[in-house]
């Protein structure tokens, strides 16, 4: 067995991914405020309830979600090529470092949702045979980076095939 190669420096995601996170938070925040406002309106007609407090709290929460959280979440994402494996770290409260050996990748997707397309980033999805981590997502890659990584892992799988 050859000695484990030196791990590469962990790389940040494309800064445009921060915008993706922010847009998603904005949508979630909007839904949150709308639900709170709707509930308060119903309450206002049913009992003597002055609309305002719940919607206000929801709006404050939404602002935190939109302004503070995307930065935190973005900073916690990183990935590295390490020892013939892709290592992905993420998570604010629960920090997870996932390692997928290239040889265990069954197939690969590069997916782009509407918001990701708008911001110009892609998500690389690795499928493994494990029940835990059956799909591993690496979001926020520039389109050419995602394609290059896919090609590299594909090449690795092809080399290992009998």
């Amino acid at each position, binding site marked *: *067995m050859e000695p*484990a190669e030196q791990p590469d420096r962990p790389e940040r995601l494309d800064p445009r991914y921060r915008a993706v996170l922010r847009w998603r938070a904005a949508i979630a925040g909007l839904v949150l405020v709308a639900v709170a406002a709707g509930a308060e309106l119903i309450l206002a007609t049913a009992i003597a309830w002055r609309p305002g407090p719940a919607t206000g709290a929801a709006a404050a929460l939404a602002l935190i979600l939109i302004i503070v959280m995307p930065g935190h979440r973005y900073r916690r994402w990183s990935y590295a090529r*390490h*020892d*013939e*494996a892709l290592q992905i770290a993420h998570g604010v*409260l*629960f*920090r*997870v*470092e*996932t*390692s*997928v*050996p290239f*040889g*265990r990748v069954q197939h690969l997707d590069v997916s782009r949702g509407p918001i990701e397309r708008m911001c110009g980033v892609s998500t690389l999805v690795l499928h*493994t*045979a*494990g*029940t*835990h*981590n*059956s799909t*591993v997502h690496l979001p926020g890659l520039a389109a050419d980076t995602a394609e290059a990584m896919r090609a590299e892992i594909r090449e690795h799988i092809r080399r*290992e095939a*009998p």
Partner: protein
Amino acid sequence: MSETADRRLHPAALLITFVRRLPEFVLGLPAVAYFVGDVSIGAAIAIAGVGFIASMVFAWLIWSRFAYGAGASEFVIESGLFARNRRAIPYERVNDVSITRPLLARLLGVAAVAIETGAGGKDEGKLEYVSLAEAGRLRDLIRLRKAGVAGEDVDAPAPEPLIFAMSVGRLLLAGLFGFSLVFLAVLGGVFENVSDWLPLEGIDAERYIEERGSRLAGRVALAWTLTAAALLILVGMVSGVVRTVVRDFGFRLTRAETGFRRQRGLFTRTDVVLPFRRVQAAIVTTGPVRRALGWRALTFQTLGGDTGEGGSHVVAPLASATECAPILAEIDLPSPPPPEAFERSSLRYAMRRALLYAGVCALGFVALLVAVAPIWPLLALALAAPILAWLQWRHHGSLLADDRMFVRNGFWRQRVTMLACARIQSLDVRRGPIQRALGLATLIVATAGASSIAPLSVVDLRLADARALRDALLARARGRWL
């Protein structure tokens, strides 16, 4: 390529369909009477009978249009009444041929054959039903064709060496350990639903007891509690024995050409082949009594595509260490190492566990205070929490030796999971908020066929140790895994 599908299913299949649909017919009678309205019983029977006959004719049509054939390079199944479907299964794609014999099929001397290819976890070819001899012939034929031996006449294969079998005495013993209150729960459920119809309303136990004074009531209550407890244990034991005997009667594990063959069952006999290369991990479990007597159970986790049990297959329900060793040797695994060989997690594991239990207890306190119930049982539980946490810490550990990984878990029901590092699919180093405060991390080892709710994990290692173990496992997980 055109292989001919020239063989029919056994006519007994129609009889089985008939018997299976009979209850629907009987249950359908009131429905017919209800929907048609004012009709005599005779007319209702006639209407339901016509429907039943129509469905049987339909079943016969489907049966008559179903054909299969074993070609030179693929297995062909033709089916469909209006939309004809021709399915070809190349032999090299066949993973497993299993034979199942439900009670009715056994009485009629037929069996169901399922040809599995591992695609999508579903049976790719199901033959319900063929004669028992035909089922055996098909399985041997498919296995031979898969191995690349062509030819029409199939020699009887050499008898497969027996690896493990359960005697009746062993079976009963396993049943005693399989203590189960499942039947009780079922009975309770039935009683709940039926009690409305039982003549219990006339008996007012409370008034009866009140009339005879509270002192007697106390004695009656105690006697009743003791009797109920004894009954509960008895029912649990009996149901455990019954369940085990029904499931594992005539348990035989033999070594087939490419895998283990397991045959078992009292009423429904199943015959399953577990290919060696699809076994991902072995799990040895034992309880406190079983351990003291030297007994253990051996289970294999296999890659998807199997029927039932969610990728987990018992290969020895109750066996000694010396009986397990040859089974494990077939898939190139050693016997589980002794407990002292395992490396324990940080002692802070116990601390975090105790904290967790304390949190649960605190929630319980609040709930009980709100409900104005006595809190002393919870107090005792809270005192036991650190001891429990410490015991769990003592019985949790991992070991990496010779490209094999071992993880042990549980102080009451102990289990050792063993796998070749090459079977590891991915690894997670995971830290929650409390773990980060304590400098701990959990290593999750993802394998195929494992439970997705509780994946194999080494809990609460020091962060540096978790990362070191991860890197050591990664270095051994390179290369092909199947």
